[in-house]
Protein backbone atom coordinates (compact mmCIF):
# COMPACT_ATOMS: atom_id res chain seq x y z
CA UNK A 1 0.00 0.00 0.00
CA UNK A 2 1.25 3.45 -0.84
CA UNK A 3 2.50 5.61 2.03
CA UNK A 4 1.84 8.79 0.09
CA UNK A 5 -0.15 11.44 2.00
CA UNK A 6 -3.80 12.14 1.27
CA UNK A 7 -4.62 15.09 -0.93
CA UNK A 8 -5.97 17.06 2.06
CA UNK A 9 -2.83 16.41 4.12
CA UNK A 10 -0.64 17.37 1.22
CA UNK A 11 -2.46 20.66 0.58
CA UNK A 12 -2.69 21.53 4.30
CA UNK A 13 1.08 21.10 4.53
CA UNK A 14 1.42 23.65 1.76
CA UNK A 15 -0.69 26.11 3.70
CA UNK A 16 -3.83 25.85 1.58
CA UNK A 17 -6.82 26.88 3.74
CA UNK A 18 -10.15 25.08 3.59
CA UNK A 19 -11.70 28.13 2.00
CA UNK A 20 -9.05 27.96 -0.72
CA UNK A 21 -9.65 24.22 -1.05
CA UNK A 22 -13.39 24.85 -1.44
CA UNK A 23 -12.64 27.35 -4.18
CA UNK A 24 -10.40 24.79 -5.83
CA UNK A 25 -13.24 22.25 -5.65
CA UNK A 26 -15.78 24.73 -7.04
CA UNK A 27 -13.47 25.38 -10.00
CA UNK A 28 -12.87 21.64 -10.33
CA UNK A 29 -16.61 20.91 -10.40
CA UNK A 30 -16.99 23.54 -13.11
CA UNK A 31 -14.06 22.00 -14.97
CA UNK A 32 -15.56 18.50 -14.74
CA UNK A 33 -18.91 19.84 -15.94
CA UNK A 34 -20.55 18.73 -12.68
CA UNK A 35 -23.38 20.65 -11.00
CA UNK A 36 -21.92 23.49 -8.86
CA UNK A 37 -23.60 21.99 -5.77
CA UNK A 38 -21.14 19.08 -6.00
CA UNK A 39 -18.21 21.16 -4.69
CA UNK A 40 -18.56 20.11 -1.01
CA UNK A 41 -18.86 16.43 -2.03
CA UNK A 42 -15.73 16.79 -4.16
CA UNK A 43 -13.90 18.42 -1.25
CA UNK A 44 -14.89 15.49 0.96
CA UNK A 45 -13.89 12.79 -1.53
CA UNK A 46 -10.75 14.46 -2.84
CA UNK A 47 -9.51 15.24 0.69
CA UNK A 48 -9.35 11.55 1.58
CA UNK A 49 -7.65 10.23 -1.57
CA UNK A 50 -3.98 9.35 -1.62
CA UNK A 51 -1.71 10.89 -4.23
CA UNK A 52 -1.61 8.52 -7.18
CA UNK A 53 1.55 7.83 -9.16
CA UNK A 54 1.37 8.86 -12.80
CA UNK A 55 3.56 7.73 -15.70
CA UNK A 56 3.31 9.76 -18.91
CA UNK A 57 4.59 8.21 -22.14
CA UNK A 58 5.03 10.31 -25.29
CA UNK A 59 5.17 8.36 -28.51
CA UNK A 60 4.66 9.46 -32.12
CA UNK A 61 3.48 13.01 -31.43
CA UNK A 62 4.35 16.69 -31.83
CA UNK A 63 4.35 17.61 -28.09
CA UNK A 64 1.32 19.81 -28.77
CA UNK A 65 -0.66 17.96 -26.10
CA UNK A 66 1.97 18.64 -23.43
CA UNK A 67 2.22 22.24 -24.68
CA UNK A 68 -1.54 22.59 -24.35
CA UNK A 69 -1.43 21.36 -20.77
CA UNK A 70 1.61 23.31 -19.60
CA UNK A 71 0.51 26.54 -21.33
CA UNK A 72 -3.02 26.26 -20.00
CA UNK A 73 -4.75 29.30 -18.57
CA UNK A 74 -5.52 28.15 -15.04
CA UNK A 75 -2.07 27.61 -13.58
CA UNK A 76 -3.48 27.52 -10.08
CA UNK A 77 -5.72 24.58 -10.86
CA UNK A 78 -3.23 22.81 -13.09
CA UNK A 79 -0.37 23.21 -10.67
CA UNK A 80 -2.57 22.00 -7.84
CA UNK A 81 -3.57 18.96 -9.86
CA UNK A 82 0.10 18.32 -10.51
CA UNK A 83 0.85 18.80 -6.83
CA UNK A 84 -1.90 16.37 -6.06
CA UNK A 85 -0.67 13.69 -8.46
CA UNK A 86 2.88 12.45 -8.41
CA UNK A 87 4.13 12.72 -11.98
CA UNK A 88 6.88 10.16 -11.83
CA UNK A 89 7.89 9.91 -15.46
CA UNK A 90 7.37 12.33 -18.37
CA UNK A 91 10.36 12.35 -20.64
CA UNK A 92 9.65 15.77 -22.11
CA UNK A 93 9.32 17.48 -18.74
CA UNK A 94 11.68 15.50 -16.52
CA UNK A 95 15.26 16.65 -15.95
CA UNK A 96 16.63 13.12 -15.74
CA UNK A 97 17.49 11.14 -18.87
CA UNK A 98 19.03 7.86 -19.88
CA UNK A 99 19.28 4.77 -17.69
CA UNK A 100 18.42 6.52 -14.43
CA UNK A 101 15.12 7.82 -15.82
CA UNK A 102 14.18 4.46 -17.32
CA UNK A 103 15.02 2.66 -14.07
CA UNK A 104 12.83 5.09 -12.16
CA UNK A 105 9.93 4.28 -14.49
CA UNK A 106 10.48 0.58 -13.88
CA UNK A 107 10.66 1.14 -10.12
CA UNK A 108 7.37 3.10 -10.07
CA UNK A 109 5.70 0.42 -12.19
CA UNK A 110 6.81 -2.19 -9.66
CA UNK A 111 6.12 -0.29 -6.45
CA UNK A 112 2.68 0.94 -7.49
CA UNK A 113 1.65 -2.05 -9.59
CA UNK A 114 -2.10 -2.02 -10.16
CA UNK A 115 -2.40 1.56 -8.81
CA UNK A 116 -0.64 3.97 -11.12
CA UNK A 117 -2.28 5.94 -13.88
CA UNK A 118 -0.70 5.68 -17.33
CA UNK A 119 -1.04 8.70 -19.62
CA UNK A 120 -0.10 8.28 -23.27
CA UNK A 121 0.17 10.94 -25.96
CA UNK A 122 1.07 10.11 -29.52
CA UNK A 123 0.25 7.14 -31.75
CA UNK A 124 2.19 3.90 -31.80
CA UNK A 125 3.92 2.90 -35.07
CA UNK A 126 3.78 -0.87 -35.56
CA UNK A 127 4.99 -1.25 -39.19
CA UNK A 128 8.39 -2.94 -39.70
CA UNK A 129 8.63 -4.08 -36.09
CA UNK A 130 7.96 -0.61 -34.66
CA UNK A 131 11.38 0.80 -35.69
CA UNK A 132 9.97 4.22 -36.57
CA UNK A 133 9.89 5.42 -32.97
CA UNK A 134 12.04 4.12 -30.13
CA UNK A 135 12.95 5.37 -26.66
CA UNK A 136 16.02 4.08 -24.79
CA UNK A 137 16.30 1.26 -27.31
CA UNK A 138 12.70 0.11 -26.81
CA UNK A 139 10.04 0.47 -29.47
CA UNK A 140 6.97 2.45 -28.47
CA UNK A 141 4.97 -0.77 -28.77
CA UNK A 142 7.21 -2.60 -26.27
CA UNK A 143 7.16 0.31 -23.82
CA UNK A 144 3.38 0.67 -23.99
CA UNK A 145 2.81 -3.04 -23.46
CA UNK A 146 5.24 -3.12 -20.52
CA UNK A 147 3.86 0.00 -18.81
CA UNK A 148 0.22 -0.91 -19.41
CA UNK A 149 0.54 -4.19 -17.50
CA UNK A 150 0.44 -2.66 -14.00
CA UNK A 151 -1.67 0.40 -14.80
CA UNK A 152 -5.00 0.94 -13.04
CA UNK A 153 -6.24 2.83 -16.09
CA UNK A 154 -4.87 4.47 -19.21
CA UNK A 155 -5.61 8.00 -20.41
CA UNK A 156 -4.97 8.42 -24.14
CA UNK A 157 -4.34 12.16 -24.49
CA UNK A 158 -4.81 13.70 -27.93
CA UNK A 159 -6.27 12.40 -31.17
CA UNK A 160 -3.04 10.50 -32.00
CA UNK A 161 -3.15 8.34 -28.87
CA UNK A 162 -6.95 8.08 -28.99
CA UNK A 163 -7.50 7.40 -32.70
CA UNK A 164 -4.11 7.39 -34.49
CA UNK A 165 -4.39 11.06 -35.45
CA UNK A 166 -2.20 12.70 -38.07
CA UNK A 167 0.50 9.97 -38.05
CA UNK A 168 -2.25 7.54 -39.08
CA UNK A 169 -3.47 9.81 -41.90
CA UNK A 170 -3.13 8.46 -45.44
CA UNK A 171 -0.81 6.86 -46.44
CA UNK A 172 0.27 6.07 -42.84
CA UNK A 173 3.86 5.09 -43.65
CA UNK A 174 4.71 4.03 -40.07
CA UNK A 175 1.66 1.87 -39.48
CA UNK A 176 0.48 4.18 -36.69
CA UNK A 177 -2.31 2.90 -34.44
CA UNK A 178 -4.08 4.10 -31.30
CA UNK A 179 -3.59 2.87 -27.72
CA UNK A 180 -6.93 1.06 -27.82
CA UNK A 181 -5.82 -0.82 -30.94
CA UNK A 182 -3.10 -2.48 -28.85
CA UNK A 183 -4.24 -2.62 -25.23
CA UNK A 184 -7.44 -4.59 -24.80
CA UNK A 185 -7.51 -5.49 -21.09
CA UNK A 186 -7.40 -2.09 -19.34
CA UNK A 187 -9.90 0.75 -19.00
CA UNK A 188 -8.89 3.42 -21.54
CA UNK A 189 -10.12 7.02 -21.44
CA UNK A 190 -9.76 8.79 -24.77
CA UNK A 191 -9.19 12.54 -24.40
CA UNK A 192 -9.18 13.46 -28.07
CA UNK A 193 -8.43 16.78 -29.73
CA UNK A 194 -5.49 18.17 -31.64
CA UNK A 195 -4.58 19.20 -29.02
CA UNK A 196 -7.21 18.50 -26.36
CA UNK A 197 -8.49 21.44 -24.31
CA UNK A 198 -6.17 21.74 -21.29
CA UNK A 199 -8.93 21.76 -18.70
CA UNK A 200 -10.40 18.65 -20.30
CA UNK A 201 -7.09 16.85 -19.65
CA UNK A 202 -6.97 18.05 -16.05
CA UNK A 203 -10.72 17.56 -15.65
CA UNK A 204 -10.32 13.86 -16.43
CA UNK A 205 -7.41 13.62 -13.98
CA UNK A 206 -9.49 15.46 -11.36
CA UNK A 207 -12.37 13.05 -11.89
CA UNK A 208 -10.09 10.05 -11.45
CA UNK A 209 -8.56 11.64 -8.34
CA UNK A 210 -11.90 12.57 -6.83
CA UNK A 211 -13.88 9.43 -7.44
CA UNK A 212 -11.13 6.87 -8.01
CA UNK A 213 -13.07 5.66 -11.01
CA UNK A 214 -13.04 6.47 -14.68
CA UNK A 215 -15.78 8.85 -15.84
CA UNK A 216 -18.74 7.83 -17.98
CA UNK A 217 -17.54 7.32 -21.57
CA UNK A 218 -19.17 7.53 -25.00
CA UNK A 219 -18.87 4.80 -27.63
CA UNK A 220 -15.46 6.16 -28.70
CA UNK A 221 -14.17 5.97 -25.13
CA UNK A 222 -14.40 9.72 -24.47
CA UNK A 223 -15.77 11.24 -21.22
CA UNK A 224 -19.35 12.29 -21.86
CA UNK A 225 -18.94 15.26 -19.49
CA UNK A 226 -16.82 16.94 -22.19
CA UNK A 227 -17.69 15.05 -25.37
CA UNK A 228 -21.39 14.49 -24.69
CA UNK A 229 -22.68 17.08 -27.12
CA UNK A 230 -21.63 18.38 -30.50
CA UNK A 231 -19.90 21.69 -31.02
CA UNK A 232 -22.96 22.61 -33.10
CA UNK A 233 -25.45 21.92 -30.30
CA UNK A 234 -23.46 24.04 -27.82
CA UNK A 235 -22.52 26.80 -30.27
CA UNK A 236 -23.59 30.36 -29.45
CA UNK A 237 -24.22 30.77 -33.21
CA UNK A 238 -26.73 27.90 -33.16
CA UNK A 239 -29.72 30.30 -33.10
CA UNK A 240 -28.57 31.60 -36.52
CA UNK A 241 -28.49 28.07 -37.89
CA UNK A 242 -32.04 27.56 -36.65
CA UNK A 243 -33.09 30.80 -38.37
CA UNK A 244 -31.34 29.74 -41.61
CA UNK A 245 -28.84 32.60 -41.43
CA UNK A 246 -25.55 31.43 -42.94
CA UNK A 247 -22.28 33.14 -43.84
CA UNK A 248 -21.66 32.37 -47.52
CA UNK A 249 -18.05 33.51 -47.61
CA UNK A 250 -15.50 34.57 -45.03
CA UNK A 251 -15.98 38.28 -45.68
CA UNK A 252 -19.64 38.71 -46.48
CA UNK A 253 -22.23 40.51 -44.36
CA UNK A 254 -23.31 37.22 -42.78
CA UNK A 255 -19.76 36.48 -41.62
CA UNK A 256 -19.44 39.99 -40.19
CA UNK A 257 -22.74 39.59 -38.35
CA UNK A 258 -21.55 36.37 -36.78
CA UNK A 259 -23.93 34.03 -38.61
CA UNK A 260 -23.58 30.25 -38.76
CA UNK A 261 -20.46 28.90 -40.55
CA UNK A 262 -22.09 25.60 -41.56
CA UNK A 263 -21.88 26.28 -45.29
CA UNK A 264 -18.22 27.30 -45.03
CA UNK A 265 -17.31 23.82 -43.86
CA UNK A 266 -17.72 24.01 -40.08
CA UNK A 267 -17.50 20.45 -38.71
CA UNK A 268 -19.44 21.44 -35.58
CA UNK A 269 -22.44 19.20 -36.38
CA UNK A 270 -20.34 16.01 -36.37
CA UNK A 271 -17.74 16.96 -33.76
CA UNK A 272 -18.04 16.18 -30.07
CA UNK A 273 -15.96 18.47 -27.85
CA UNK A 274 -16.24 21.21 -25.22
CA UNK A 275 -14.65 24.15 -27.13
CA UNK A 276 -17.93 26.09 -27.32
CA UNK A 277 -18.18 26.44 -23.54
CA UNK A 278 -14.61 25.98 -22.31
CA UNK A 279 -13.00 28.10 -25.05
CA UNK A 280 -9.27 28.55 -25.72
CA UNK A 281 -6.42 30.95 -24.98
CA UNK A 282 -7.29 32.05 -21.48
CA UNK A 283 -10.98 31.75 -22.23
CA UNK A 284 -10.63 34.43 -24.93
CA UNK A 285 -12.47 32.71 -27.73
CA UNK A 286 -12.60 29.56 -29.82
CA UNK A 287 -12.49 28.82 -33.58
CA UNK A 288 -16.12 29.65 -34.38
CA UNK A 289 -16.03 32.81 -32.24
CA UNK A 290 -12.91 33.82 -34.20
CA UNK A 291 -14.86 33.41 -37.43
CA UNK A 292 -13.57 30.04 -38.66
CA UNK A 293 -15.44 26.77 -38.75
CA UNK A 294 -14.56 23.82 -36.52
CA UNK A 295 -12.02 21.41 -38.10
CA UNK A 296 -13.37 18.41 -36.21
CA UNK A 297 -9.98 17.62 -34.63
CA UNK A 298 -11.43 15.51 -31.82
CA UNK A 299 -13.02 12.99 -34.21
CA UNK A 300 -11.33 9.88 -35.65
CA UNK A 301 -9.56 10.37 -39.01
CA UNK A 302 -10.41 14.09 -39.13
CA UNK A 303 -7.40 14.73 -41.37
CA UNK A 304 -8.77 12.43 -44.09
CA UNK A 305 -12.40 13.52 -43.83
CA UNK A 306 -12.26 15.79 -46.89
CA UNK A 307 -11.76 19.54 -47.06
CA UNK A 308 -12.04 21.73 -43.98
CA UNK A 309 -14.02 24.14 -46.21
CA UNK A 310 -16.60 21.70 -47.49
CA UNK A 311 -19.94 21.64 -45.66
CA UNK A 312 -20.34 18.41 -43.72
CA UNK A 313 -23.03 16.86 -45.88
CA UNK A 314 -21.46 17.70 -49.23
CA UNK A 315 -20.22 14.58 -51.06
CA UNK A 316 -16.42 14.49 -51.23
CA UNK A 317 -16.56 13.68 -54.96
CA UNK A 318 -18.08 17.10 -55.72
CA UNK A 319 -15.25 18.98 -54.11
CA UNK A 320 -12.70 18.12 -56.80
CA UNK A 321 -14.81 19.84 -59.43
CA UNK A 322 -14.85 23.12 -57.54
CA UNK A 323 -11.11 23.53 -57.24
CA UNK A 324 -9.37 24.43 -53.99
CA UNK A 325 -9.41 28.20 -54.42
CA UNK A 326 -13.13 28.37 -55.00
CA UNK A 327 -13.85 26.06 -52.11
CA UNK A 328 -11.59 28.03 -49.77
CA UNK A 329 -13.22 31.29 -50.72
CA UNK A 330 -16.59 29.64 -50.32
CA UNK A 331 -17.95 31.60 -53.24
CA UNK A 332 -19.10 28.60 -55.22
CA UNK A 333 -19.34 26.08 -52.41
CA UNK A 334 -21.77 28.23 -50.48
CA UNK A 335 -24.40 28.19 -53.20
CA UNK A 336 -24.03 24.56 -54.13
CA UNK A 337 -24.03 23.39 -50.55
CA UNK A 338 -26.99 25.47 -49.62
CA UNK A 339 -29.17 23.70 -52.17
CA UNK A 340 -27.73 20.29 -51.55
CA UNK A 341 -28.11 20.35 -47.80
CA UNK A 342 -31.51 21.90 -47.47
CA UNK A 343 -33.44 18.66 -47.10
CA UNK A 344 -30.86 17.19 -44.68
CA UNK A 345 -31.03 20.23 -42.42
CA UNK A 346 -34.80 20.42 -42.56
CA UNK A 347 -35.02 16.76 -41.63
CA UNK A 348 -32.68 17.15 -38.69
CA UNK A 349 -34.51 20.21 -37.45
CA UNK A 350 -37.86 18.45 -37.60
CA UNK A 351 -36.52 15.39 -35.76
CA UNK A 352 -34.85 17.73 -33.24
CA UNK A 353 -31.62 15.75 -33.08
CA UNK A 354 -28.05 16.40 -34.19
CA UNK A 355 -26.92 15.06 -37.54
CA UNK A 356 -24.68 12.03 -37.38
CA UNK A 357 -21.68 11.48 -39.60
CA UNK A 358 -23.44 8.57 -41.30
CA UNK A 359 -26.49 10.62 -42.16
CA UNK A 360 -24.37 13.45 -43.48
CA UNK A 361 -22.17 11.20 -45.60
CA UNK A 362 -25.22 9.26 -46.70
CA UNK A 363 -25.00 9.90 -50.44
CA UNK A 364 -21.20 9.75 -50.55
CA UNK A 365 -21.22 6.39 -52.32
Amino acid at each position, binding site marked *: MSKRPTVAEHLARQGV*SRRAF*LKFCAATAS*MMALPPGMAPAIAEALGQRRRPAVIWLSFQECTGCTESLTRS*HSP*TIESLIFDVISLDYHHTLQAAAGDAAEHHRERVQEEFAGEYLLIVDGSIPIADGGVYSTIAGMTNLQMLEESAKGAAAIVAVGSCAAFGGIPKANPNPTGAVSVADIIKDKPIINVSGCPPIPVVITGVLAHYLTFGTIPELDKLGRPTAFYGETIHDRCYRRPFYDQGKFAKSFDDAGARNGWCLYELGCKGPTTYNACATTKWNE*GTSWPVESGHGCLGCSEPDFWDAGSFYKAVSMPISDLGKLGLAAAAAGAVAGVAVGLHNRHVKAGAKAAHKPLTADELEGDKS
Partner: protein
Amino acid sequence: MSQLSDIPVTVTVLQAGADAAPHGRALLMELENQLRDLVEQGRESSIDLRSLPLSPGDLAFLEQHLGKGEVTAEVSALGPSTVQETAIHGVWWVRHYNSNDEVMAEFLEVTQCPDIIRAHPADVRDSLEDLRARLVELE
Protein backbone atom coordinates in the same frame (compact mmCIF):
# COMPACT_ATOMS: atom_id res chain seq x y z
CA MET B 1 6.79 42.94 -39.48
CA SER B 2 3.27 44.27 -39.69
CA GLN B 3 1.43 45.13 -36.52
CA LEU B 4 -2.09 44.07 -35.62
CA SER B 5 -3.19 47.67 -36.09
CA ASP B 6 -1.91 47.58 -39.71
CA ILE B 7 -4.32 44.82 -40.63
CA PRO B 8 -7.52 46.37 -41.98
CA VAL B 9 -9.94 44.54 -39.70
CA THR B 10 -12.66 46.32 -37.77
CA VAL B 11 -14.08 44.70 -34.70
CA THR B 12 -17.79 45.35 -34.43
CA VAL B 13 -19.45 44.64 -31.11
CA LEU B 14 -23.06 43.70 -31.60
CA GLN B 15 -25.52 45.92 -29.78
CA ALA B 16 -27.53 44.30 -27.03
CA GLY B 17 -30.60 43.06 -28.83
CA ALA B 18 -32.35 39.72 -29.19
CA ASP B 19 -29.61 38.48 -31.55
CA ALA B 20 -26.73 39.48 -29.27
CA ALA B 21 -28.17 37.85 -26.13
CA PRO B 22 -30.09 34.77 -27.29
CA HIS B 23 -29.91 33.09 -23.87
CA GLY B 24 -30.21 36.11 -21.55
CA ARG B 25 -33.94 35.90 -20.95
CA ALA B 26 -33.84 32.12 -20.36
CA LEU B 27 -31.19 32.63 -17.68
CA LEU B 28 -33.30 35.27 -15.93
CA MET B 29 -36.22 32.81 -15.94
CA GLU B 30 -33.96 30.15 -14.41
CA LEU B 31 -32.91 32.61 -11.70
CA GLU B 32 -36.56 33.42 -11.03
CA ASN B 33 -37.17 29.70 -10.38
CA GLN B 34 -34.14 29.37 -8.13
CA LEU B 35 -34.95 32.52 -6.16
CA ARG B 36 -38.51 31.25 -5.64
CA ASP B 37 -37.07 28.00 -4.22
CA LEU B 38 -34.87 30.02 -1.85
CA VAL B 39 -37.83 32.09 -0.67
CA GLU B 40 -40.30 29.22 -0.31
CA GLN B 41 -38.10 26.29 0.72
CA GLY B 42 -34.80 27.84 1.73
CA ARG B 43 -33.06 25.83 -0.99
CA GLU B 44 -29.79 27.27 -2.26
CA SER B 45 -28.64 26.77 -5.83
CA SER B 46 -26.33 28.21 -8.43
CA ILE B 47 -25.67 28.50 -12.14
CA ASP B 48 -22.24 27.71 -13.57
CA LEU B 49 -21.83 30.42 -16.20
CA ARG B 50 -18.78 28.72 -17.73
CA SER B 51 -20.77 25.58 -18.51
CA LEU B 52 -23.21 27.43 -20.76
CA PRO B 53 -22.66 28.48 -24.38
CA LEU B 54 -23.04 32.18 -23.68
CA SER B 55 -22.16 34.93 -26.09
CA PRO B 56 -20.49 38.11 -24.81
CA GLY B 57 -23.88 39.76 -25.36
CA ASP B 58 -25.54 37.31 -22.97
CA LEU B 59 -23.19 38.26 -20.14
CA ALA B 60 -23.67 41.97 -20.82
CA PHE B 61 -27.43 41.39 -20.83
CA LEU B 62 -27.27 39.64 -17.44
CA GLU B 63 -25.07 42.33 -15.92
CA GLN B 64 -27.42 45.01 -17.19
CA HIS B 65 -30.60 43.36 -15.94
CA LEU B 66 -29.32 42.07 -12.59
CA GLY B 67 -27.59 45.31 -11.69
CA LYS B 68 -25.22 45.96 -8.81
CA GLY B 69 -26.31 45.45 -5.20
CA GLU B 70 -25.11 46.53 -1.78
CA VAL B 71 -22.34 44.03 -1.06
CA THR B 72 -18.98 43.71 -2.78
CA ALA B 73 -16.39 41.40 -1.24
CA GLU B 74 -12.98 40.17 -2.22
CA VAL B 75 -11.50 36.90 -1.00
CA SER B 76 -7.81 36.07 -1.28
CA ALA B 77 -7.49 32.30 -1.50
CA LEU B 78 -5.45 30.73 -4.31
CA GLY B 79 -5.71 34.03 -6.13
CA PRO B 80 -8.55 36.53 -5.72
CA SER B 81 -12.28 35.81 -5.79
CA THR B 82 -14.85 38.55 -6.11
CA VAL B 83 -18.32 38.29 -4.65
CA GLN B 84 -20.86 40.86 -5.79
CA GLU B 85 -24.46 40.89 -4.67
CA THR B 86 -26.67 41.90 -7.56
CA ALA B 87 -29.52 44.37 -7.21
CA ILE B 88 -31.68 41.26 -6.83
CA HIS B 89 -31.10 40.37 -3.15
CA GLY B 90 -30.01 36.76 -2.76
CA VAL B 91 -28.48 36.55 -6.24
CA TRP B 92 -24.69 36.80 -6.07
CA TRP B 93 -22.20 37.03 -8.92
CA VAL B 94 -19.13 35.05 -7.84
CA ARG B 95 -15.93 35.07 -9.88
CA HIS B 96 -12.92 32.93 -8.97
CA TYR B 97 -9.61 34.11 -10.40
CA ASN B 98 -6.27 32.34 -10.39
CA SER B 99 -3.02 33.98 -9.31
CA ASN B 100 -2.65 35.45 -12.83
CA ASP B 101 -6.03 37.24 -12.50
CA GLU B 102 -7.67 35.02 -15.11
CA VAL B 103 -11.21 33.80 -14.45
CA MET B 104 -11.17 30.11 -13.43
CA ALA B 105 -14.84 29.75 -12.56
CA GLU B 106 -17.88 32.01 -12.57
CA PHE B 107 -21.17 31.35 -10.83
CA LEU B 108 -24.48 33.04 -10.15
CA GLU B 109 -25.24 31.82 -6.64
CA VAL B 110 -28.74 32.01 -5.20
CA THR B 111 -28.24 32.04 -1.43
CA GLN B 112 -28.32 34.26 1.66
CA CYS B 113 -24.52 34.22 1.74
CA PRO B 114 -22.07 32.44 -0.59
CA ASP B 115 -19.99 29.68 1.02
CA ILE B 116 -16.72 31.23 -0.06
CA ILE B 117 -17.42 34.13 2.36
CA ARG B 118 -18.04 31.98 5.47
CA ALA B 119 -15.16 30.80 7.64
CA HIS B 120 -14.92 27.00 7.60
CA PRO B 121 -15.53 25.41 11.08
CA ALA B 122 -12.27 23.44 10.85
CA ASP B 123 -10.32 26.61 10.01
CA VAL B 124 -12.04 28.39 12.94
CA ARG B 125 -11.04 25.56 15.29
CA ASP B 126 -7.43 25.77 14.10
CA SER B 127 -7.47 29.52 14.54
CA LEU B 128 -8.74 29.21 18.12
CA GLU B 129 -5.59 27.19 18.88
CA ASP B 130 -3.54 29.76 17.02
CA LEU B 131 -5.01 32.68 18.98
CA ARG B 132 -4.42 30.88 22.30
CA ALA B 133 -0.80 30.29 21.29
CA ARG B 134 -0.41 33.98 20.55
CA LEU B 135 -1.82 34.83 24.01
CA VAL B 136 0.69 32.48 25.61
CA GLU B 137 3.48 34.24 23.76
CA LEU B 138 2.33 37.57 25.25
CA GLU B 139 2.66 36.35 28.82
